């Protein structure tokens, strides 16, 4: 039976296939690096620190440990968990770089130079506060939308692959992905992006 088979493969995977497991974990850590640098990218000096300082390293180690202990029952569960861990680490990073005592407090951003100069202004977070709000808002999304954001954005999966993992059609996934972005927009639009 495929369900049983799939599950069994996953259980086997969690117990035995070390190489495969390491590969998935490595992919997840890569995503954390990519997203952390995306988030910290607007703070060039912070990014430089983050690449070398303990903050990101600690996050990576924590994530590795968390994933290494996981005994997933399905790809869906595993990737959902990985995304949650990534998000937590990113929130943690945002907090550490924000606030009165935050590492990035006295450093300038790139003044939005990285933002595409289009007629429509992007609402990509440019402050740690906005990033934290973004990650928290993802947490508050309806479960079906949150899962899609986790796989597509946090885990960096292609949409068809994410649809496979969730067992839904590509069309359904696109709908949820769209609904999630519209909800997140409502959170982010309240941040003032013009004066960062």
């Amino acid at each position: 039976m495929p369900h049983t088979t799939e599950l069994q493969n996953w259980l086997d995977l969690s117990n035995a296939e070390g190489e495969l497991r390491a590969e998935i974990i490595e992919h997840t850590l890569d995503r954390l690096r990519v997203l952390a640098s995306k988030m910290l990218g607007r703070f060039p000096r912070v990014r430089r620190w983050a690449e070398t300082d303990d903050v990101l390293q600690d996050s990576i180690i924590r994530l590795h440990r968390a994933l290494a202990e996981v005994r997933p029952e399905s790809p869906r569960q595993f990737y959902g968990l990985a995304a949650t861990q990534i998000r937590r680490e990113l929130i943690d990073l945002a907090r550490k770089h924000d606030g009165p005592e935050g590492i990035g407090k006295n450093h300038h951003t790139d003044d939005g130079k990285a933002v595409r100069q289009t007629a429509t202004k992007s609402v990509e977070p440019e402050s740690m506060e906005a990033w934290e709000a973004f990650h928290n808002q993802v947490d508050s999304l309806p479960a079906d939308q949150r899962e899609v954001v986790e796989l597509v954005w946090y885990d960096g999966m292609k949409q068809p692959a994410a649809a496979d993992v969730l067992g839904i059609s590509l069309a359904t996934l696109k709908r949820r992905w769209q609904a999630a972005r519209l909800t997140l927009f409502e959170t982010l639009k309240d941040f003032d992006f013009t004066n960062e």
Partner: protein
Amino acid sequence: MNDASRDDRIADLLLRWEVERERGNDLPIDQLCAECPELRDEVEQKVEALKRMAWMSGDAEEPPLPEVIVGRYKVERLLGQGGHGRVVLAFDTELERRVAIKIPHSPLAPLRVEARRIAKLRHDNIVAVHDIVEDDGQWFLVGDFIDGQSLADLIAAGPLEIEKATSLIATVAEALHHAHEQGFIHRDIKPPNILIDANGKPFLTDFGIAVSTDEESSDNLGTVAYMSPEQIAGEKQLIGPRSDIYSLGVVLYECLTGKLPYQVDTPLTARESVLFRHQLPPSTWNGQVGKWLNRICLHCLSKHPEGRYSGKALAEALRSPEREPFELPSWLKTSGVFLCGAMATLLVSFFLNFEPELPVEAEKPPTVIVENDALVFDGSYRIVTPVERFAPCTLEAWIMIEDYDNEHPRFIIGSDLAPRFGNSLGIIGAGLVAEYIPTDSQQGIIFSDATVPLNEWTHVAAVFGETETRLYLDGKHAVSGPATKPLGGTRFVIGCVGDTNPIDSFIGKVRSARISEGERYFTEFTPDESFENDTATLASYSHDVHEGRVLDISGNEQHGILRRK
């Protein structure tokens, strides 16, 4: 438009906008909302929001195809792509043959484990996967290249010949049976996944690669149509080999008719139909489909898995030597007429024309009122059954009337063929009557003293026997009269006196109506509250109305067509 459908509509428009944008087209809002200007402002607002959230959409374009895979497979061209990945044609430089290579979208390494299992699946009619390779972080499934076309291409050209369709589906059913025995379920049986080589040999492909297509799995109309009810309902415990048989039943239906079992235009209605509605038999659309094949097809499409065949049983049923190759009406089969050439064509055409006509698309079916599980006849419509008039027969119904008509007869079941009477059951004034076909004249009505009560469910029956015609009211013998002449030439109709003579309509409710072969009642009896479907039953109708038809619930597929008076 209610809020939910308004939101759905907006979401559809936004998806369309995004798809176009992914293709590089910035669809103007006015064009996008051309058919629904009332949604324009809201759509524009949301499009703006999505543009401002574009930074989240890093879903990259498809990477270019590799030129060579693992130094051995030289990629020639893209064969196709879908939700699960791309398939390329490649040349195996070691074994010097062409192969098809699947490049899954999914970076998920775990699929490799499943793929290794699939590689062990071997059958003459299943595309073999014989290598799983990894190159630069991407993994590939190498399989046989079938030089031909898919069943979808074949069906696109129209329905298949009956023999071809049954033979092909039987072969696929055997392949499925083999896979099921090995513990595999395909889960995504549909025409594009059945390949046909140059010799017409079918091959099932994509086995198990579509790891999870069930649950709410699709908003895609093209996919949901093939999903079993249990897959759509997310009833995981019911998903098994017979889910594949359902899908194969849909494919068989499509092969025979060129149509899907449900004529729907949205995924939502498709899901509803699969879950709750019965299908019209394939013969509705293709007169060459015999009853035996209707039964097989509809058996595959049973709502519950237990009601379906196994793959092996389906193949056997389709290949059964006992099937009737082409069902002719009994008078044609026994007439001793030697059918040949144009004569045969003419007779067969005649027979085909005798089948219930398809609903005329330009004419919407009449609106039928169903109240408390009964059809309410108000004189505006009638039901034309496909059952040709014959005798001996028994016509009966459960009816309720509210008043008497002292000017016009009211016929419950009729088969009048003007200017001759037919075999009919009706009410004149307050009394139960039967029409019959006299041997020596054109007119024959048998009157009774039995009064049909008002506002009570009443069982009425007319037995057109070998030697006499008998009328029964609530099982009590009302009257006997002369026997009818066994003449065909028209069909039984419910709700008026005859198909070609749509007058003297019945006004009242009909809970059920049944047409049976032979003399069902010889003596007084207690009527069944609901009619059993026994061997004498030819057609049985209740309030089950679907797409302009009243469904025959006897299983004999004698569905009635709703016609305006």
